């Protein structure tokens, strides 16, 4: 009896120790998760804090008198006259209406620098399209110059330097009060391609470029990856050759992406003579990079189909092909799709290989096909982040937010698909 009691005592004591261990172990887990969440929070806070102003544009609304004398333009249909005409003059004149004191060349030049450099071409485009508007007064909205935009948005932020003269600052303050200068949602960001001027730069070109590139990647890597996975898992004999292939597929998944860029440069551009910086080549390179991911996840999905289902179909007399197509593939599809979408999300965020095949070029036009020069979202972010103009810093952060939004929606789609298609057996 005493022996037994002491045993119970020992157990009780060891129990205490075990529970303590368990509590400590749980604490480690909670701390780990907290660290992960905290870093994620800091990352998001930083990006959103820096980038939210990227979604705001600064505009100047003016009543512009399109006077033929100030513009030196008599006949808007004459191309020579259009080329020689002065379209900045009406803008300066309109600004002088607000500040009658601003006389002289220097003041006129300073006034002219309040609006973006594309303001003049806005007027030219308007007159070219509608010659009748000559000698009328139009209310037009111009994008403010980058320096004005920085002043309006970041006057209190010491990390930005204000490059306006005292006089210009006074003008801007007054115009702000009169609501001539205003801030609104930056629709330019989503409707234009890249530009040398931050106010005019948009991310649409990169989004469309990414879309074309991803379409090529998907069209190649999804069918090839799934076919390879099905063959390796269902039809290939188990021997040295398939072992060798398997090892190499796993290796391929670990190869740094820049190597794929070099391969694309050497093979697609060098050997096949495809053009540089086009979505097709980018898509091909990313497809090669995504293939191992899709093959590995698809094989895992096929493996997880219970053998009893296979046996059931074989037992009725389904051929190998029927077993695979009618039963294995439909049951493995959620896993295959999830793997593919995650692979595509990886490819969407990939920059290094695309730099090598020339998708880093400065491209203003929104690409209109698989063979037109394009850039992609992460490369656009890279370009903006390394740009010296102050306005691009916030654009880069805004671009990151757009990219993250795409990633999150792709991953959410993967989870939704899995939940939706998953069947229990």
């Amino acid at each position: 009896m005493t022996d037994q009691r002491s045993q119970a005592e020992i157990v009780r004591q060891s129990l205490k120790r075990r529970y303590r261990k368990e509590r400590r172990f749980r604490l480690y887990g909670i701390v780990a998760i907290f660290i992960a969440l905290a870093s994620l929070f800091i990352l998001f806070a930083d990006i959103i804090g820096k980038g939210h102003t990227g979604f705001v544009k600064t505009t100047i609304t003016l009543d512009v008198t399109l006077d033929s004398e100030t513009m030196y333009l008599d006949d808007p249909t004459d191309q020579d006259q259009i080329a020689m005409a002065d379209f900045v003059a009406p803008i300066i004149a309109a600004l002088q209406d607000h500040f009658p004191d601003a006389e002289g060349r220097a003041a006129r030049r300073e006034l002219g620098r309040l609006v973006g450099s594309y303001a003049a071409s806005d007027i030219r485009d308007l007159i070219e399209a509608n010659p009748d508007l000559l000698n009328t007064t139009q209310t037009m909205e111009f994008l403010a110059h980058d320096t004005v935009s920085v002043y309006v948005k970041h006057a209190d932020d010491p990390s930005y330097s204000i490059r306006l003269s005292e006089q210009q600052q006074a003008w801007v303050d007054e115009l702000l009060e009169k609501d001539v200068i205003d801030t609104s949602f930056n629709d330019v960001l989503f409707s234009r391609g890249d530009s040398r001027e931050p106010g005019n730069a948009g991310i649409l070109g990169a989004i469309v470029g990414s879309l074309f590139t991803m379409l090529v990647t998907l069209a190649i890597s999804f069918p090839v990856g799934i076919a390879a996975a099905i063959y390796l898992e269902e039809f290939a004999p188990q021997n040295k050759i398939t072992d060798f292939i398997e090892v190499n597929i796993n290796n391929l998944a670990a190869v740094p992406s820049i190597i794929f860029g070099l391969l694309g440069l050497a093979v697609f551009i060098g050997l096949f003579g495809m053009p540089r910086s086009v979505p097709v080549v980018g898509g091909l390179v990313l497809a090669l990079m995504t293939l191992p991911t899709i093959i590995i996840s698809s094989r895992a999905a096929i493996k997880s189909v219970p053998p009893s289902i296979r046996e059931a179909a074989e037992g009725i007399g389904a051929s190998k092909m029927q077993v695979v197509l009618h039963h294995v593939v439909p049951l493995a599809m959620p896993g295959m799709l999830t793997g593919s979408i995650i692979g595509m999300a990886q490819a969407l965020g990939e920059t290094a290989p695309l730099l090598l095949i020339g998708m880093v070029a400065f491209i203003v036009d929104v690409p209109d096909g698989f063979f037109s020069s394009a850039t992609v979202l992460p490369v656009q972010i890279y370009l903006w982040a390394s740009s010296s103009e102050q306005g691009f810093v916030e654009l880069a952060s805004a671009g990151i937010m757009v990219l993250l939004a795409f990633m999150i929606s792709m991953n959410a789609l993967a989870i939704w698909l899995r939940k939706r298609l998953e069947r229990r057996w």
Partner: protein
Amino acid sequence: MSVNETISSAAEQREASVPVQDVAVEKKREDMPVQEGKTVGLPYADDPKFKLRNVEVFYGDDRAIKDISLDIARNEVISFIGPSGCGKSTFLRCLNRMNDSIDICRVKGQLMLDDEDIYHSKRDVVELRARVGMVFQKPNPFPKSIYDNVAYGPRIHGLANRKSDLDEIVENSLRKAGLWDEVKDRLDATATGMSGGQQQRLCIARAIAVSPEVILMDEPCSALDPIATAKVEELISEMSESYTIVIVTHSMQQAARVSHRTAYFHLGHLVEVNETSKVFTSPEHELTESYITGRFG
């Protein structure tokens, strides 16, 4: 009835004693005489459905089935019994070549179905399996509707050209499997939502939908409760009129209840085959007697 009672008590003893006696059992097995290729009892039949001679199965270098010869008569129910790992499932799976998908498995010997070689190199496995259906240990319905489960076989074999024909096959198969009344109002419901016993009967309906000549059953009731088991056994008895049935079972009561003949396997040998009543009342071989009286399992 008395047979069943003896068997049931024997089985209980067996189950209770297995974990304790493991080592001793191994030793005893070695001591017992098993002569290769010699089967006592009644292994042969006139005009058999299956004629199996000198069958050997290898997994790599491991000989899992050792020189077995056996006839399976038309429209008979024969059960294979024996301790775990004795090769009865392996042997069963040779009859419709389900072992083909295992790369390292090789089958030797003569296996004839209606005087046609099952393992002939030109033999079409798909055609063979349409004639020799199979029901597995765990109910394995497809994750589709009840209707589609039964209709799958006829569809892939092209047995029904019109929807009405297919409906008829589905209804007949479900009726034969004794499931029609339970599911006729919810043929579109998923099969995986049914109870285990219903799922297993659905698998039987699925097997008979392609009108096979033989049905192989690999421990069909091991995952079922006693009531579901009773239903499946009843079904087996009914089906024996039109099909040849080979059933592997761990339950000796089940073998006693459903089968005409019983075959006892031991470590890859076929030790004894005889009429079921004889096997359970007066086994000829010492090993069979030890097994059915529960001296080892």
